[in-house]
């Protein structure tokens, strides 16, 4: 007599039925329906917040609509695009933006990597200094803008006194945010001050991900510190650096609040980034159609550049 013989048979009809999935038991919906149920709110929000406004903005970009006047949309074809692309002032603003993005990234990457290499070392007060370095990026851009406006004030701001102390120049004899030649560099400086810690954090993550045994092997091979940096550290941190460049390029390209508070785009138009031009067209001049066309151009520019860059990043990663 086998053990099987001792099992009491189940009631007819019950032994062949597998237990139904819990969800199906609760709602009577199919698996596919449950999947849709879960993603539908997200899809709805995505459509409502991102896709619909995008389509609406594209539509408005072909009109002469002004949101502050009760007028019909007025289809004008590609006039807004022609106006923008043939406007010398807009091209100047693109140049200003390019200058800002380029130098911001160069400085943030160089200083961020240097700080990450420093913070990656063990030294006394390590945690304290890490916190101090991270502070600027934790502040609101509105606070940073107002704070630096005061610091850079020629009559009472300590920045001019600091420069004057080292150069001998009278503190009130120059102005950083009011000078045509200095203002573009001032916005680069303040943005670099604020966002370098972010680049540093990404670089630090890269540095910490490099296995220690690679350096030990290099030590055995008697590779110098410089050689280790060029042959191990830099290549292995590069994908992280490229990611930081991508994030910061997008962030700098769409920069508005900080620069608007510091210079409002002035003096003249010397620091008028495209995002400020867009805001002025959309919410000061209320040229909604024109501003939509500019927004579409910006979107295509950033989206296209980011796509090319991501492909490049993937290639680097594969290497």
């Amino acid at each position, binding site marked *: 007599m086998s053990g099987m013989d001792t099992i009491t048979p189940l009631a007819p009809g019950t032994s062949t039925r597998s237990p139904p999935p819990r969800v199906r038991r609760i709602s009577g919906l199919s698996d596919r329906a449950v999947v849709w149920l879960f993603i539908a709110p997200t899809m709805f929000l995505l459509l409502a917040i991102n896709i619909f406004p995008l389509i609406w903005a594209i539509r408005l970009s072909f009109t*002469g609509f*002004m949101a*502050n*006047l*009760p007028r019909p949309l007025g289809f004008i074809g590609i006039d807004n695009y022609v106006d923008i692309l043939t406007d010398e*002032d807009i091209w100047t603003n693109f140049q200003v933006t390019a200058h800002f993005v380029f130098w911001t990234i160069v400085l943030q990457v160089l200083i961020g990597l240097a700080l990450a290499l420093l913070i990656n070392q063990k030294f006394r007060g390590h945690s304290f200094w890490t916190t101090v370095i991270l502070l600027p990026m934790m502040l609101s851009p509105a606070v940073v803008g107002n704070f630096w406006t005061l610091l850079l*004030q*020629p*009559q009472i701001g300590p920045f001019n006194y600091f420069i004057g102390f080292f150069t001998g120049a009278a503190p*009130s*004899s*120059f*102005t950083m*945010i*009011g000078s*045509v030649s200095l203002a573009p560099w001032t916005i680069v400086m303040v943005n670099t001050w604020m966002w370098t810690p972010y680049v540093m954090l990404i670089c630090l993550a890269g540095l910490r991900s490099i296995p220690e045994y690679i350096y030990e092997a290099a030590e055995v091979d008697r590779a110098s510190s410089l050689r280790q940096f060029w042959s191990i550290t830099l290549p292995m941190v590069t994908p992280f650096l490229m990611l930081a460049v991508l994030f910061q390029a997008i962030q700098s390209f769409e920069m508005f609040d900080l620069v608007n508070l510091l*210079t*409002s*785009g*002035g*003096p*003249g*138009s*010397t620091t008028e980034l495209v995002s400020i031009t867009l805001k*002025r067209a959309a*919410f*000061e*001049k*209320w*040229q909604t159609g024109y501003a939509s066309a500019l927004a579409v151009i910006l979107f295509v520019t950033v989206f296209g550049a980011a796509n090319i860059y991501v492909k490049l990043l993937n290639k680097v990663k594969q290497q």
Partner: protein
Amino acid sequence: MVKSLSFAGLIAAGLVAAAPLSAHAEGKSLTMCWAAWDPANALVELDKDFTKATGIEMKHEFVPWTSYADHFINLLNSRSAECDLIIGDSQWIGGAAENKWYVKLNDFFEKNKISMDSFLPATVVGYAEWPKDTPNYWGLPAMADAVGWTYRKDWFAKPDLRAEFKAKYNRELEPPKTWDELIEVSKFFTGKEIDGKKVYGSYIFTERGSEGITMGVTNAMYNYGFDYMDAKKPYHMEGIVNSAGAAKGMDVYKELFDCCQPKGLTNAYMQEGLDAFKSGEVAMQMNWYAFFPGLAKDPQVGGDKIGFFKNPAGPTGQFTQLGGQGLSVVAASKDVDDALLYVKWFAQADVQQKWTDLGGASASKAVLMSDAYKKSAPYAPSFVESMGMVKDFWAEPLYVPLLLDMQNRVHDYVVANKGTSQQALDALVKDWKKVFKQEGKDPS
């Protein structure tokens, strides 16, 4: 004492005159919208009398100047009933009339015997009429204002400075009467050490974001031949806006900025000017008369230390930039009748007098042209003269793009040294033509 007695008398007279108004039920309220600044506080005081007279409670919504236009134009455009009454900027009148944001007041004025002849002509054109120079009224002149100048009377009186100035320019050191003199005096003071501090000659408007530099530069340009359009050919601007005289006026403003503006004040408007003057940084300051009552009483620079003068003349005339606002009834208000009742009350002669006494600035001829007013404050005589020589910016429905275009072109040239004044004005004409075409008006 005499003044307080006369206040009491005025209040009593006001109450008597307003007796028919008091028939209104209690529990009602009206919301008055305006900018947040000194005269708004005076209005709050004044409105207590309206509540006493009518039982209608007055609520106030005051918004800082930086967001004043954006905030209220959005409210008006969205047909919001948040404001029952609004003291709106002179430039809004075109848009407000054409889009029916305000209640047209002609019939109401006629019925209640409110005559526009009792107000200064420039304020009627500036704050009430649309189209301009036609008897179509959308507001009651409420707050008269214009650009004027303050100077440090105590510095001008210093014997050593007076002697030095006379030796250098062969004339007395006095408040400037022309723009040439203004530049001369500004240059004279710039770099001088006074009361232990290095000072600058003058402060002028340079703000870029809203209206500042335009409200400043026009004070020079008007007096060198600038105008907005050909008087005989509406919206024709070529050769008028960008005339040689207009360009010269812009050059003069730039010269004053380059020589004598305190460093760093490259994006500065009303408050920065007040700060520079109060802190003893400048000898002369351009600003709106609305601030002068406060400055005249300032413990640091007021009293005997301050003097006032009207905008200096140029080779083609003497004009100054109009400021100020009119009182209008919001068409979307749910209490239009009560709001009109307020306008009727506000238009009364005694209320206008009290409005000025409290620190507002009535546009009533009876108040402003009286000898009592001219003697009431050191700035009063030049204010009255200034209100007789005002010019205003465009008040078209699309005034915002017109204003921002001028802001950009002027700031680019004056502050950022971009191109020449002629190039800036040529570009401005091009910008403005584009806006007018958009508005369906022929700028050719």
